[in-house]
């Protein structure tokens, strides 16, 4: 318990954020986005139990998320018809977790014998099978339409009906908090430690007495439990589950979130889930190309920052732990890097938006609204301007990024010097 207490400050802050967020952002839209964030955080942390903690890259973790969603919806519906025992809706995520756990134990047993590429391929196979099954088992999955439900069923303890969205938000918030604490605690157990050990060096783990397959299987099962929990919350939140929730796109989405956030740090997936959910909700309406930017961002992260955003931040941990004044010399190069990146991004986004516009435009329409300006795509000048900006930005980036790296290196040298002194 002491261990958890030492982090108490962080947890209290997290609880406060979850508790108070609706008073700051009151609109229905904000509430809905924050609810989705909560679900995404749980799912992302569950996913990172595999990828970050256990070293297993899965292309099919949405299977447990989605199946739990379907089962939860069916339970709600059956409850509405009075065909099954009453089970408090507030606790339904637990039911979803158990569903996830059940399938996780089952499928995990056959898929966790190896890690690496084999595991990834098996997860892909199960993902595709699940997707195909949603179209075959129509009575259960109802094909492409998916299944609707009404979460307002049964008794209403303390007036909790889950009619108002704010109640659903708090349901998600509380479960999100519980799941965050639980999954953090898991990393501090013998299982959690050995999960890291198996990720780092499966051979050695065997020679200190651990059956690596058992460790992976356990990680897979527990992760599926939390994925199921998130799936049930997702179902309650939308009162609908569609076939896409079990599919490759959903699995890929959580993978992107977790990787962009950062797999090596506990906060990484949380960061990724919050950021990507927010951006998808806001930018998704603003630009049709959002998923393209998203994908490009992911690829850039894989190539240049395999530790994700959290990894980038943690690279600077030695600096602020040793002496925050070291950061002074870094400000200028970092600003330079940021500005050049923004210029390049500005130009490239302009170009992409124009291409999008040209290939999707209605006849006779020539003006696209770019950064608030009406831009004429039939004019060569528009293309030249944005092309020049993009090219300039890229050229400048090739100068500014080495400077960023250099200033970081020199700061790290200082840190090392102080250590050895």
């Amino acid at each position, binding site marked *: 318990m002491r261990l958890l207490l030492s982090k108490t400050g962080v947890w209290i802050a997290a609880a406060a954020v979850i508790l108070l967020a609706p008073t700051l952002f009151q609109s229905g839209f904000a509430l809905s986005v924050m609810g989705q964030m909560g679900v995404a955080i749980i799912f992302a942390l569950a996913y990172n139990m595999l990828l970050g903690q256990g*070293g297993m*890259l899965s*292309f099919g973790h949405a299977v447990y998320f989605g199946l739990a969603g379907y089962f939860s919806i069916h339970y709600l519906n059956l409850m509405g018809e009075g065909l099954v025992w009453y089970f408090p809706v507030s606790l339904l995520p637990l039911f979803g977790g158990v569903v996830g756990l059940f399938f996780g134990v089952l499928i995990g047993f*056959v*898929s966790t*014998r*190896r890690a*690496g*590429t*084999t595991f*990834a*391929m*098996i997860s*892909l*196979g*199960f993902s*595709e*099978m699940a997707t*195909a*099954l949603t*179209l*075959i*088992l*129509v*009575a*259960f999955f109802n094909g492409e339409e998916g299944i609707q439900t009404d979460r307002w069923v049964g008794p209403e303890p303390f007036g909790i009906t889950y009619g108002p969205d704010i109640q659903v938000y708090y349901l998600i918030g509380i479960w999100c908090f519980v799941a965050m604490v639980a999954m953090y605690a898991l990393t501090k157990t013998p299982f959690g430690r050995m999960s890291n050990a198996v990720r780092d060096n499966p051979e050695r783990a065997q020679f200190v007495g651990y059956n690596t397959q058992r460790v992976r299987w356990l990680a897979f099962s527990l992760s599926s439990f939390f994925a199921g929990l998130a799936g049930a919350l997702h179902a309650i939140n939308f009162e609908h589950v569609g076939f896409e929730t079990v599919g*490759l796109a959903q699995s*890929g989405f959580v*993978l*992107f979130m977790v*990787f962009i956030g950062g797999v090596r740090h506990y906060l990484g997936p949380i960061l990724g889930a919050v950021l990507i959910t927010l951006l998808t909700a806001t930018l998704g309406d603003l630009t049709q*190309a959002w*998923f*393209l930017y998203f*994908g*490009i961002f*992911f*690829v850039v992260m*894989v*190539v*240049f920052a*395999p530790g994700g955003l959290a990894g980038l931040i943690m690279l600077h941990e030695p600096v602020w732990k040793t002496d925050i004044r070291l950061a002074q010399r870094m400000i200028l190069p970092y600003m330079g890097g940021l500005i050049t990146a923004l210029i390049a991004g500005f130009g490239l986004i302009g170009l*992409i938006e124009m*291409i*999008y516009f040209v*290939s*999707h435009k209605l006849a006779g329409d020539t003006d696209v609204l770019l950064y608030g300006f009406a831009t004429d795509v039939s004019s060569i000048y528009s293309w030249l301007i944005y092309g020049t900006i993009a090219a300039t930005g890229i050229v400048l980036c090739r100068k500014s990024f080495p400077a960023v790296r250099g200033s970081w290196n020199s700061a790290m040298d200082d840190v090392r010097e102080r250590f050895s002194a």
Partner: protein
Amino acid sequence: MEILFFSLFNGILYGLLLFMLSAGLTLIFGMMGVLNFAHASFFMLGAYFAYQISQFIGFWPALVIAPLVVGVAGALVERYGLRQVHKYGHVAELLFTFGIAFVIEELVQMVWGKAPVPYEIPQSMKFTALTWQGMNYSAYRVFMVLISVGIFAALYLFLKRTRVGLIIQAALSYPDVVGSLGHNVPRIFMLVFGFGTALAGIAGVLGGNVLGTEPAMALQLGTIVFVVIVVGGLGSLGGALIASIFIGLLTNMAVSFDIPFRGFFEALGVSPEAMGTGKDLIDMTSSGISPILPYLLLVLMLIFRPRGLFGQRDV
């Protein structure tokens, strides 16, 4: 009997198309250890490029130009992306190609939209080449078979008879040794990646107008191609050929001979009057479950024989 021959022909045709895709993929995997998730995306690019080029100068130039463009694109992706990721290991490479697949799909949607494009069989090929057992076989399909077989033969001779082929073969079996023989491994990797993606491009040009050219085609075929190379054995060209044709036949036959499973369940003593999901299960037919079959094969293979039918090492 006509159905048998017809679906046999179509199965083999589909299998040969799969082979053209999987040949490149298995070469890339064998040499670089990279499972290229984006391989079918290059196939898709081949189809779209061919569509665009044939709008201007016709199908036949497109057949040559589109694969070249795709190959160059592949080589660039290797040179400026994959090569940087190599140091982080195979999982990072898989992540990278997964991201690239996603980006290519979005790019295609950006340029050509979400709806299928009308990429059609060239007019000059729209005649019946032969009639057999009462079924007509179009010239284009016969042409596809010939090209695929030709590519297989050329590839086989190239690998067995030329110096570069020998190096590639050596690298397939002993990837670490080739570097020590004084060959520029990064350059070979780039060329192999470019060549493999160009093969996918050819498949795209040939198959795009038969299978339909749309943004979803990459994902649909991509996972099937994974099945092919896993089942055939990673790095094994012969295995890829056999697995391609096997899977081509399997899926085509399952659809053509729509075998109901009801009798099977009745034999087991399951009541045919079942409701809901039980009814769905009983009413399953072989064509209904044909989308699952390849993946079932994949999972079973990976669990029981991870090196595939003809592979020399595990996945």
